[in-house]
């Protein structure tokens, strides 16, 4: 329905007269002025941003040309000519810069993923200990948090590096862990399945279904427990079946145990000490912040909630799990996401101890060798932006799920 300016201007005053006037959105002179102002302001900001972007890009191109520097992304297909001390995909001197980028990215992701999982678990434990009814437990947790979060992350990293490197024996005297794994100042040696086996696919599928079955069984069990019912047999069967299928799959693989040969171990998987100290430092440092986030979340839950649960005769552990933590999650999620993005970016400190993460091998070595500073910096920046954004999206999706309607 077309509404003339005259109608809109007087709409507010006519509103009370009938239902039709009530239903119409009112656009008075104030609203129209506000809208015009908003459009003007946004256009001005857009123009400014575009002008800056044009200036920066033009300036970069002109300067690169003036110095005779090559530009473009063709270098990604060139041979890099260097090896990586640790990579999840095979890297040799004939590997391209593109493959180096991928290997570095995978290393960064591995470090970040391990540290996020470990820091979250440790942080939740310490955070809940911070609000424990037992005073000694609270004090120990408090001491841990204050000690850990008030030291620089870099110090943590160097400390761990010193501990791992200096205090462990040389390879010849490596500490044997059951004869299958070995720990020395060159790193942690683990048995690994021999790659390229025809069985590998079958085994991978078996392990995946096994894990899925365990998770399904466990969630059926815990959901029943939360309702206070006896765990249904299906959950138990699923979990047991998953365990058996996993064990069978793992036994079927050809495991290669690291063997001491000459100056180093051969075979198996070698985790560099730099890897171990990086993951340890990121985990410990961030766990203290996660602990504080969890504590704040738990304390944000109204005291009456605990009292109501107590008055019903619920045991303290279930009060925490069924009443307090689900409500605390609403407060915990946003700063937790913040902490995760911080951790992902801090994993770039790998460079300091010489672990070949994305920044080390790509923004470092690759940039030095190719001189494509702009391209490499842009790619690296985009990677971290994408990672942080996906963390934000994932957590806000989870946050929407646990969000409560305002009380």
């Amino acid at each position, binding site marked *: 329905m077309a509404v003339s300016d005259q109608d809109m201007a007087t709409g507010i005053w006519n509103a009370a007269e009938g239902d039709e006037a009530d239903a119409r959105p009112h656009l008075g002179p104030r609203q129209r002025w506000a809208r015009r102002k908003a459009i003007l302001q946004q256009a001005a900001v857009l123009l400014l941003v575009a002008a800056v972007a044009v200036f920066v890009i033009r300036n970069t191109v002109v300067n690169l040309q003036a110095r005779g520097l090559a530009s473009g992304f063709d270098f990604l297909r060139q041979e890099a000519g260097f090896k990586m001390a640790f990579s999840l995909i095979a890297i040799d001197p004939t590997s391209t810069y593109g493959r180096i980028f991928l290997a570095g990215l995978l290393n960064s992701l591995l470090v970040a993923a391990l540290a996020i999982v470990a820091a979250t678990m440790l942080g939740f434990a310490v955070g809940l200990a911070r609000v424990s009814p037992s005073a000694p437990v609270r004090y120990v947790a408090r001491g841990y948090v204050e000690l850990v979060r008030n030291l620089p992350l870099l110090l943590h990293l160097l400390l761990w590096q010193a501990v791992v490197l200096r205090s462990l024996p040389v390879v010849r005297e490596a500490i044997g862990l059951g004869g299958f794994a070995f720990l020395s100042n060159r790193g942690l040696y683990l048995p690994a399945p021999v790659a390229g086996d025809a069985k590998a696919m079958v085994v991978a599928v078996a392990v995946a279904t096994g894990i899925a079955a365990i998770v399904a069984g466990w969630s059926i069990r815990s959901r029943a427990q939360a*309702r*206070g*019912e006896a765990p249904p047999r299906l959950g138990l069967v699923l979990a047991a079946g998953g365990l058996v299928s996993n064990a069978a799959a793992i036994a079927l693989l050809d495991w290669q145990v690291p063997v001491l040969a000459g100056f180093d171990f051969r075979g198996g998987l070698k985790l560099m000490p730099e890897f171990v100290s990086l993951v340890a430092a990121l985990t410990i440092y961030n766990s203290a912040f996660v602990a504080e986030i969890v504590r704040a979340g738990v304390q944000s839950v*109204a005291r*009456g*909630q605990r*009292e*109501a*649960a*107590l*008055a*019903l*005769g*619920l*045991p*303290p552990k*279930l009060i925490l799990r*069924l*009443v307090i933590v*689900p*409500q605390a999650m609403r407060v915990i999620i946003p700063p937790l996401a913040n902490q995760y993005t911080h951790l992902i970016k801090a994993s770039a400190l790998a460079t300091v101890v010489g672990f070949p993460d994305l920044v080390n091998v790509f923004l470092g070595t690759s940039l030095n060798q190719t001189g494509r500073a702009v391209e490499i910096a842009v790619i690296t920046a985009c990677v971290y932006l994408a990672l942080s954004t996906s963390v934000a999206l994932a957590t806000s999706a989870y946050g929407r799920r*646990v969000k*409560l*309607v*305002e*009380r």
Partner: protein
Amino acid sequence: MTANASISVRSLSKWYGSWRALRDVSMDIEGGTCTVLCGPSGSGKSTLLRCLNGLEEWQEGDVVIGGVPVGYRAGELRRLRRDVGMVFQSFNLFPHLSVLDNVTLAPRIVRRRGRRESEQHAMQLLERVGVGQHAAKLPSALSGGQQQRVAIARALAMRPSILLFDEPTSALDPESVKEVLDVMIDLARSGTTMAVVTHEMGFARRVAGRVVFMDKGSIVETGEPDEFFDCPCTDRAKAFLGNIARN
């Protein structure tokens, strides 16, 4: 049943730091009766009520419920609280659980009842307090009076022998007050042992067996509702009743 549901408070004293909240309080509540606790704010009536199910700790004296002294170990308190339901001023429903789950949570976990059985019982209770049609909603979707009636159903779901009410209508608008009081009157008439902290004189007159008036941590006066409201013996009670009548 009624003998089991008697409450006896003997020489109860409680300090918050150096401030004395309860001074040598003694009272008896017979099984199957309703007792109203009233008094000015800070008089210790809520504190006394919260001692009855061990939500508050005290320093001296005893609370005996159904012949058993209220202990202070966690296990003893949990067993006691299964049989003593409580309704709070601010409802304290679990906001992340549906109305039905709020009511069935404790019976399932503490009483180990099956899902179907506890849901059937919960629906009966919700119908009884008049909010059956809201069972699937979250508490925040309900009005204050509806939430408080759900809270009463939640307490009843444990099949308690005693119900404690801590200013159950103080956070409600006048229309909701009536909804909640009607439910409470119904409960009192069905012979539930009740201790109610409230200023609702109409409620006290209709169903209370006794009114306990407290001031500054002591019981100043007790009596039948009609005699207490019509001709209070003490000056303090006269002044208090004069004040609430004026408002």
